[in-house]
């Protein structure tokens, strides 16, 4: 394998520093009821430092091709994801999440998943996120609510997330190109680009010959050719039963949502007198 072995966190100090910076940054940035502008700036700087540490610790990026595109879209996704969870206003959180979805769609496109990248934009940003915004407009009390300005245990939450991220980074850094000894799952990406047409046994035999393979051949995406057509063939061929089950699930969710809305509204209108709840008038009007 001509690739340099991925050895991002050999020292461990960089990873530990990144984790500590992530904890401090998220702790400073999460709503805690006594926000100061300086604390938020410090948190932002620490977060950018943590991000830089993760990038430095990871694979060095070279060239201006696919790698730069990947870096840009993943930075967009990660930064706007952090902004989503630290936004005080839920509307801003939803807008930041839309930007996260755009970044994730870019990452999926770089990974060669053309259909999924477009579907993420259409389904998530176009449908699900708009549904979120509808609910926000229906259910948003005037002004910035008190519960948007405090967090549940911000330090412990940030610690949990950052430690999980550190552990995941360690295990990702320890991945190697060698095929797994236990399961015998061949890495078809190291075989020729036409590996999809070969039986798995022949591909598994080629995994040992991978170090002498052409690097361009190892980098090529075996799924790129006729991507959407082959994905549809796979989906409606091998996974047809699952597609039917997903259709039934969609129908059940649709009926369930309508049932809960109609019945719950009646019960709630009967149970709550208009003076006891600030939202009673709204629910009775529904």
């Amino acid at each position: 394998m001509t690739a340099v072995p991925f050895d991002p966190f050999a020292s461990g100090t960089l990873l530990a520093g990144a984790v500590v910076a992530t904890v401090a940054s998220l702790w400073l940035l999460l709503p805690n009821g006594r926000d100061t502008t300086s604390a938020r700036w410090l948190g932002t700087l620490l977060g950018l430092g943590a991000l830089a540490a993760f990038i430095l610790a990871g694979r060095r990026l070279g060239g201006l091709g696919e790698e730069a595109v990947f870096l840009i879209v993943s930075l967009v996704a990660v930064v706007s994801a952090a902004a989503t969870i630290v936004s005080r206003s839920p509307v801003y959180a939803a807008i930041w999440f839309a930007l996260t979805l755009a970044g994730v769609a870019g990452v999926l496109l770089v990974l060669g998943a053309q259909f999924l990248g477009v579907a993420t934009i259409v389904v998530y940003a176009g449908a699900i996120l708009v549904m979120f915004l509808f609910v926000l407009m229906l259910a948003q009390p005037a002004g910035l609510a008190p519960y948007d300005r405090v967090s549940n245990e911000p330090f412990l939450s940030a610690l949990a997330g950052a430690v999980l991220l550190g552990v995941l980074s360690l295990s990702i850094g320890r991945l190697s190109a060698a095929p797994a000894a236990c399961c015998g799952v061949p890495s078809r990406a190291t075989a020729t680009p036409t590996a999809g047409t070969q039986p798995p046994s022949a591909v598994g035999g080629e995994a040992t010959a991978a170090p002498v393979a052409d690097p361009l051949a190892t980098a090529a995406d075996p799924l790129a050719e006729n991507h959407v057509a082959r994905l549809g063939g796979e989906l409606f061929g091998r996974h047809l039963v699952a597609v039917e089950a997903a259709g039934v699930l969609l129908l059940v969710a649709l009926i369930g949502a309508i049932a809960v809305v109609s019945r719950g509204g009646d019960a709630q209108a009967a149970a709550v007198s208009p003076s006891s709840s600030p939202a009673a008038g709204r629910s009775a009007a529904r």
Partner: protein
Amino acid sequence: MNTMQSLPLLQNALTVGAILFSLGLVGILARRNLIVMFLAAEMMLQGISVSLVAWSRYHGDWGGHVLVIFVLTVAACEAAVALVFVLQAFSRTGRLDSAAWQSLREATVGRTVDHELPSIDTVPPKFPTLAPAGILPAADENEPLQREHV
């Protein structure tokens, strides 16, 4: 070479997925707004999707792609049903606060009390200002036309 090697590409994409998943975990643990918690859960799903597609590219088969399509489907169903529950919860309490339902907690868990909560925003919102043009319309004091904040 203008394309990444498959293993570094896998590791970079898995790292992005791990970061998204961890940020979503922090959000769902820390935030109290039900809708923001829900957005954080969707963010965790996005991290999983990126990881699945990365593995799919690395192994050169369609399993990850197909799984992500089903993740999209389940996320749509989940969003529909859960947003209905969020609306019901809001219409019962008037708040989108998860702590409004803390009577459901375990008997051994203490009650969530907000300490040192300022009564007003310490950071006032900044709205864009436009140069005045035309005639200022007569304002109707009885009807609030806009919210103070978004």
